[in-house]
Structures are given as structure tokens and as C-alpha cells.
């Protein structure tokens, strides 16, 4: 059992209080920060590709429906003649590829996670452990979209790295996010300084008022 004095000494030493840590299952803690393997990454990629495929199908459906506004039915036209009312398959494939690049670029550059990564608890980081830059995310997105088989290198790589990771010096790590990614945690009571002279919770301050705000107020 930790005494209150020891607890406060830990806080002074910069130890993160347990209640501020995300709610991770105990078995997941050792995994966090390690490079993910092929299976998790392949499932995440499949989820992303499936999502893009559904968006492409949805786009086709919308275009098909809009076509009836642009070109209403008449005696000569056929409602089921898709070739006249939707783009060609090659165009839709190109559209899907482009959408995939855009999707991966935006999500990797902003949070490091796509929907597939979020589901599988993965995150893409650069060589510094941070989110990839926009250029880096775009380059990686293009590389992954054009050469998806590069992921298979993570099976034999000594560090679970795909071809894209080796070339671009990125990593995909286990990072089981809890909560909404990209949103900073709101100030909590634990963010305020601890000590006998603190004014936390006093009549003059609200509980969620941070130390910085108190400083500005005074």
C-alpha cells in the first residue's frame, strides 16, 4: 500500500498517476509501443480498403441516382443500363485508388490512425515516434496504395517492418487508443499542482480551473 506521503513524493518526481492513464487491460500494457506484426496490419489495411470500397460503391450508387435527374427515363433509355449511367470500372478503380491515398494521407498525418488502425489498436509513427508529416503521410499512402504487397515484408523483417517502413523509416506500433483519437484530454484535477498551499477546490476557484488559469486570473 502506498501512503499519501509516498504518493505525493511520486507526483513530485513526475510519476504519472494511475487514474490519468487510459483504461488498458493489463495484458495489453506490455504490447504498447511495440512494432505490430503482419496479421494486425493486414486486418487494419483490409478494413480500410473495405471502407474505401464501400465509399466507391456508394459513389456509384449516388451517380446512378443523380443520372435520372440529369437524364430522365424515356422510351429509348434503359434504367438498368449501367454503362450509360455510371462511370466505367477503370475510372472507379482510379477513383478508389485516389480516395484511398487521400484517406490514408489525411488520417496518418493528423492522428496516425486510420479507421482500420483504430479498430486494431495501431498507430503509424515516423522515425521520431511522432505522427508522419503531410508529405511523409502522402508518400507512404501512395507507396502503400501502389505497392500493397510491401506489407508482406513485415513477415520476414527482423523488426516487423514493411517495405514502406524500411524505405520511409516509419513504424506501425501497437497503441490501443481509448477514447476519441486526436482530442486532447480536458484538464483534470490531477493537472493542478499538489501541495499544502494549493488552492484547488477552495471557495475562490472552480474545480476544473487549471493552475495556469488561476495564474492568469491573479
Amino acid at each position, binding site marked *: 500500500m502506498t501512503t499519501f506521503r509516498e504518493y505525493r513524493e511520486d507526483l513530485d518526481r513526475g510519476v504519472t498517476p494511475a487514474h490519468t492513464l487510459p*483504461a488498458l487491460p493489463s495484458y495489453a500494457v506490455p504490447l504498447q509501443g511495440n512494432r505490430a*506484426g503482419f496479421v494486425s496490419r493486414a486486418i487494419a489495411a483490409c478494413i480500410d480498403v473495405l471502407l474505401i470500397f464501400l465509399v466507391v460503391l456508394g459513389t456509384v450508387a449516388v451517380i446512378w441516382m443523380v443520372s435520372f435527374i440529369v437524364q430522365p427515363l424515356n422510351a429509348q433509355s434503359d434504367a438498368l443500363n449501367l454503362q450509360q449511367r455510371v462511370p466505367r470500372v477503370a475510372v472507379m478503380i482510379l477513383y478508389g485508388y485516389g480516395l484511398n491515398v487521400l484517406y490514408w494521407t489525411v488520417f496518418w498525418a493528423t492522428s496516425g490512425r486510420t479507421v482500420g488502425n483504430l479498430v486494431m489498436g495501431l498507430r503509424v509513427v515516423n522515425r521520431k515516434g511522432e505522427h508522419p508529416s503531410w508529405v511523409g503521410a502522402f508518400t507512404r499512402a501512395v507507396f502503400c496504395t501502389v505497392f500493397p504487397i510491401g506489407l508482406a515484408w513485415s513477415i520476414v523483417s*527482423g523488426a*516487423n517492418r514493411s517495405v514502406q517502413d524500411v524505405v520511409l523509416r516509419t*513504424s506501425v506500433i501497437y497503441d*490501443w487508443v481509448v477514447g476519441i483519437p486526436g482530442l486532447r484530454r480536458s484538464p483534470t484535477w490531477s493537472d493542478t499542482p499538489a501541495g499544502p498551499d494549493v488552492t*484547488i477546490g477552495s471557495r475562490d476557484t472552480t474545480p476544473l480551473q487549471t493552475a495556469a488559469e488561476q495564474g492568469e486570473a491573479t
Partner: protein
Amino acid sequence: MPGEVILVTRPVPAPAPTPLEALRVLLASTVGMAAGTAATMAALAEQAIVTPVANVVNASLDRLVPVIADAVIERIDLTDLVLERVDLHRIVESALDSLDLTDLVIQRVDVNAIVAEADIDAVIDRVPILPLANYVIDEINLPQIIRDSTSGIAGDALNTMRRQSAGADDLVSRIVDRATFRKGRKLDAPGTPESLS
């Protein structure tokens, strides 16, 4: 037995004292009697003279000393005198050494009365309530309790899927590593995961 010597004591009548010795004994007895008589007379004289005088002197002192002492006390500052002349630290330390203050307070002091009169609000204002609350939350592991009581089926399924996929990653890695005679993989990545920061 030949050569043995036996000694036998016989009472011998005391010789008659010489005239000089008789005179010395007589003088000693006379002087002793005179000394005893003188001591007795002195004791009687002391009892007869000294005791009444002592009574008179004591009665006089009983009347005079308080008056003189009062007069002296009025003319001097005892506080200053004590402060200047007395080693108060020694006295206090000696008193503290001989006392069990804790026991004294427990027996003599009504702590409840003191607490009843104390300004509890002022005490609470000085207590770091929120760090204390956070300490309690950490100590009882409240997040884990909430997580265990509120985690839904979806969350459990998600964690299970992540765990199984991570297990599959490990399995694939071990199979490949065994086939390629590799002794393990370097999985450390730069940075700190958001889930632990």
C-alpha cells in the same frame, strides 16, 4: 611417645599493686568522675539557658523575617533576577525529562473540547483535498472498478480481437524466426505510445 612436650597452664595469683600504681588508679577515677560531672552540668546549663534563648530568637525571627523578606521582594524585580541568574533551559528540560507529556495531555486535556472549538474550515482549506481524492482513487483502483463494471460487449469484443490479432502476429513471427534461425525480433519503436502517456 619419646620427645613429646606437654604444656599445662596453672592459675597464678595476681601480684599485689605497688603504691604508685594504686595512686594512679585513684587519680584516674577521680578525674573521670570530675569530667562526667562537668558534662552533666554543661548539659543541664544548656537546657536551662540555650533553649529559652533559642525560643526567644526564633519567635523574633518569625516576626522579623517575613517583614524583611517582603521589604526585600518589594525592592527587587524577581522576574529579571530569575531571567538573569537562572538557567531556565535546564529547568525546563529537566521538567520535560521527568514528565510524560503525552500521558499528561491524554489525562488532563479534553481533546474533544479543543476540536469542538477548532476552526475546521480553516484546516480543510489547508488540506490538499483533490490530491487526496486522486490518491484514494488510485489506491482503490477506481478506474479498473469502473472499467470492469461498465465495459460493454463491444469493447470486450474489440479488445479480444486486438489481443487475438496480436497473438497471431507473435505466432507468425515465431514460426518465421524458427524457420530462419533468428533469435527474436527488435520490436522497440521510437516515441511513447499515446495509450501510456
